[in-house]
């Protein structure tokens, strides 16, 4: 995936989150992760990503 692809995905996600609305965005994102995990097919890799994404979460103050 090149930089432009990544940028397009970034923009598509931002727009979709706005479209589904703040209240539903968590549900939307969780569904999206499940779909991507299913398509990816490598359980270990997905579990690694789950750890990776939860690392260094900065708490809102």
């Amino acid at each position: 995936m090149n930089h432009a692809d990544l940028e397009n995905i970034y923009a598509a996600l931002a727009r979709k989150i706005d479209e589904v609305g703040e209240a539903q965005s968590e549900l939307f994102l969780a569904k999206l992760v499940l779909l991507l995990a299913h398509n990816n097919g490598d359980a270990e890799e997905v579990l690694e990503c789950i750890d990776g994404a939860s690392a260094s979460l900065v708490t809102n103050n």
Partner: protein
Amino acid sequence: MRPNGRSENESLYFTYPHFDAPDPAERSKQKDVAPVAIVGAGPIGMTAALALAKEGIRSVVFDNKATFNDGSRAICVARPSYYILEQLGAVAPFLEKGLGWTTGRSFFRGEKILEFKMPDGPDEKFRPMYNLQQQYIEQFLWQAVEANDLIETRWQSEITGIEDTSDGARLNVQDPSGDYGFAAHWVLACDGARSQLRTMRGHRLKGENFEGRYVIADVQMDHDYPTIRRALFDPDSRPGGTVLIHKQPDNIWRIDYQLEDGESTEDALREEKVRESVTSVLKDIDYTGSWELEWWSVYSANTLAMDDYRDGRVFFVGDSAHIVPIFGVRGLNNGLADAANIGWKLGWVLNGKAGEALLDSYSPERRGATFDVFANASKSARFMTPNSHGWRLMRDATLSLALTHPFAGELANPRQMTAFTYSESPATLAEDPSFIGGPGVGALMPESQMDGDFLSDRLGKGFTALCFDEDLAQQIVTACASDNSLTVLSLAHPSAVSDKFAADARSVYLVRPDMHIAGRWHEATAEVVIEGYHSVTFRKGVL
């Protein structure tokens, strides 16, 4: 604006000159006619005058003020602009005073999350960016303008009317001693964002009126930090907002912050309010020493441009033609490229070295560049100052991920300052599909270190043909014997340079006076190169 008690031009570090209006007795002896009249002696008008003078064309510049623009305004001068200044013979003071930089650092809620570097290296003659206050930019350009016999500047002289004539335009000039008419064959409207010429000609800027407003404040302080652009995302000083910090010469620091939707501009611009905001930003960067407020202003992010930068014999150049958002630091850089573009083209036409049709390429080339700036700036703006839940969430997710995953940091990397590629212009040739790699048609020529100097140092004053074969170079020289506006360079093959250009021994690149590539041939002959040269200069007949 300046602190209470200091006038508009009372700076902590810069002495604004005062320019008298033309002496009425002297002026009556001068001719009120010129090949080119330039309206506005801002950075763009002065650059345009120098670009014309480089081609030997005389111009008269009018400005309604008695000094330079107030305040530091545009402070980031990009690498392509340094090439323009160098070609105009004006770069020396810019190199001496400007602070070159390559690195940016981003902080998310106080934690450093990434560092980016703009492309740089031993093959580059200039740094990717230099920080320099706009009044120095104007002063250094003025030094070159004042020293140039081909340029006459009339300060305190406002253009109040324009009317077409059979061979140009007639301007109405108003100065302290009265009104007079001035005849010019061509007019460059470099009169800034509020261009009166644009209004007089019945045009307007079109596009989105983007709502972002930014306070830009300059402070003077002994702050020990290298010339690295810092971006503070969601800092304590402005929760949810973004702050940018730049170092400038003379211990001056630029602090930019966006105003929230609810904040009134008027209130945000009050001196106490600015001091308060600055104090809290300085706390974020752990600066505890003393500081002095130098100047502040508000800048709104717009994406506005004229439909056509040309109206008959009037060309709109710089802010008069377009207003670009603050992100990407293109306001000034984009205008300098406009000025260089129209300068060489009009110069070549007036010298009879190019057909008048060359001038038709100005607006499409520079409008293309403006829209490229818009696209990049809106991307940056959405990242720097997201204005909805979705964009903010994605931005925060990216910043958080960037701490551990470098790919995410790339998304936070501000678009680098590359020059626009004029690929679909009447003043460039069709691409040769047999090239695999190398700079494409319309791109700015890549720099390369030679033995002790740089490739750009060896370019001619006009067009340059880059050859990689001695015989072919000789054939082109022979074919254009009577034309001293085409320089032929013979470069080694194979070599680092030929690799960079993906060139075969028989390849040729034709480089325009503004260093953009006019055309390239993987397998060239002298005839095809000369034909291409004729075509992009719209010449008829023999050389």
